[in-house]
């Protein structure tokens, strides 16, 4: 038994159990937390495959950004999912059927696989990914950035509402640009006369 094996089985077990936790826990916040655990242990499995860049990406993007927003929303909503869960039982046969089909496909694909495991190379995989991404896949990469831009615009267009009556809005540049003569007025008053 190698050390790597032990670590692999440990993380694989955690991944599986956490994935079960995602669908089985009663509290939806717990579900999201289990999902995050799944991400993390999957990232650990990536590290074991010496795909450290993918692991870091998984942690940074999915755990550090996507799942945080998930958690935000789920925590705020505080919805009752027990009704949904009850209905979900009705769809269990369909779900199982789809799962079985996908499993079957996976088996077939893996048995006929044309994919080759990349030969062990001296180039670290972060470098290798960078080289491929910015040469062979430059065009798809740039197009993907445009998609993200559109998603950004879309989110703003559909949600940002300009309120007509903003109470008070701080414009810091204006605040800084004020001079003393604009802001302060010196008035001479004799004692007892008041303002």
């Amino acid at each position: 038994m190698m050390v790597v094996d032990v670590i692999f089985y440990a993380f694989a077990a955690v991944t599986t159990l956490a994935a079960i936790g995602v669908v089985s826990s009663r509290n939806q916040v717990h579900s999201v937390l289990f999902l995050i655990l799944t991400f993390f242990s999957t990232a650990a499995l990536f590290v074991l495959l010496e795909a450290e860049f993918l692991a870091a990406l998984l942690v940074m993007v999915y755990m550090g950004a996507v799942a945080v927003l998930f958690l935000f929303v789920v925590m705020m909503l505080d919805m009752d999912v027990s009704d949904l869960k009850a209905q979900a039982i009705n769809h269990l046969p369909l779900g199982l059927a789809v799962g079985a089909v996908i499993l079957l496909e996976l088996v077939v694909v893996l048995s006929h696989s044309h994919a080759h495991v990349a030969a062990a190379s001296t180039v670290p995989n972060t470098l290798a990914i960078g080289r491929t991404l910015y040469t062979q896949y430059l065009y798809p990469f740039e197009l993907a950035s445009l998609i993200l831009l559109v998603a950004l615009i879309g989110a703003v267009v559909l949600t940002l509402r300009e309120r007509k009556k903003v109470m008070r809005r701080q414009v810091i540049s204006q605040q800084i640009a004020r001079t003393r003569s604009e802001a302060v007025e010196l008035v001479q008053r004799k004692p007892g006369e008041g303002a």
Partner: protein
Amino acid sequence: MTELNQLIQNQGLALLGPQWWPLVWTLVWTLIKIILLITPVMILVSYYTLAERKVIGYMQVRYGPNRAGFWGILQPFADAIKLFCKETLIPQGAKRAVFFLAPALTLVPALLMWAVIPFSPELILADINVGILYVLAISSIGVYGVLMSGWSSNSRFAFLGSMRSAGQMISYEVSLGFTLIPVILLSGSLSLKDIVNAQQDMWNIIPLLPMFVIYFISGVAETNRSPFDLPEAEAELVAGYFTDYSAMSFGLFFLGEYANMILVCFLGSLMFLGGWLPPIGLLSFIPGIVWLAIKAGFLMFVFLWIRATFPRYRYDQLMRLGWKIFLPISLTWVFLTAVGLHLFGKV
């Protein structure tokens, strides 16, 4: 030393057999290394809390703690004993499992990041070739401790505090990440060791001064320190996300926060201030680790200095600073660095 090693190996092999011994030995040896790393860090953390109280005390023309031991030197231990002895309170309606997990999830990532920090060319626990990526990845986990504590406490103060804090942390993580990219571009490596070695001729702070300033301010915001300590704005939220924590579970948050602050300082020294490299070659007789300690120590002092000097930001001002000022500037600088490297033929 080699003899001792040989002795342990032989004894272990005899005791557990060739199948299990290597496994056990690897785990034990790793554990020893981890302990050797964590202990100094924890001591540093505890004395940093003392330093904070002393520095701020002197800045406010008072003494700070000076009763426990000479010059208050035993104060951290007194604090630790107090925290350990106190009763851990659990609020009514709290989600127990998450409630207890949250402080651990704040401290553990803070300590995990230390694994890849090189203290000198040789002194490094895990010399991985994507060190900076690892640090960024792990630092993005830290937000969960905050979110979980706020949610599980079943209290509005804590929940609001955790929402604020999480928003703040993920916002400043973006600009923090972008300030490090020019550094990576300049050194052409993700390994912290290579990044320091690439600063042999010129520290990164010289070409990347604006990035260093943004890095440091983002670091202050990322660790929820004053003047960005809105999550625990005591006037509004009592203590933010750890309002309902007491005793050692509170202590873990405390340790996590300070470990993060020190890490930001060490990382800043490594990325921008040349790490263990001396400022001029003449001074290279002083060991590298001393130089690193001096640089990081200075940054740590600045952290406290800032706290004693600036008033707290308002939340919209905080978000404005992060998204509308730091992000565009750091993105522009990434672009400029890339263009500069291209023009001066380094790539």
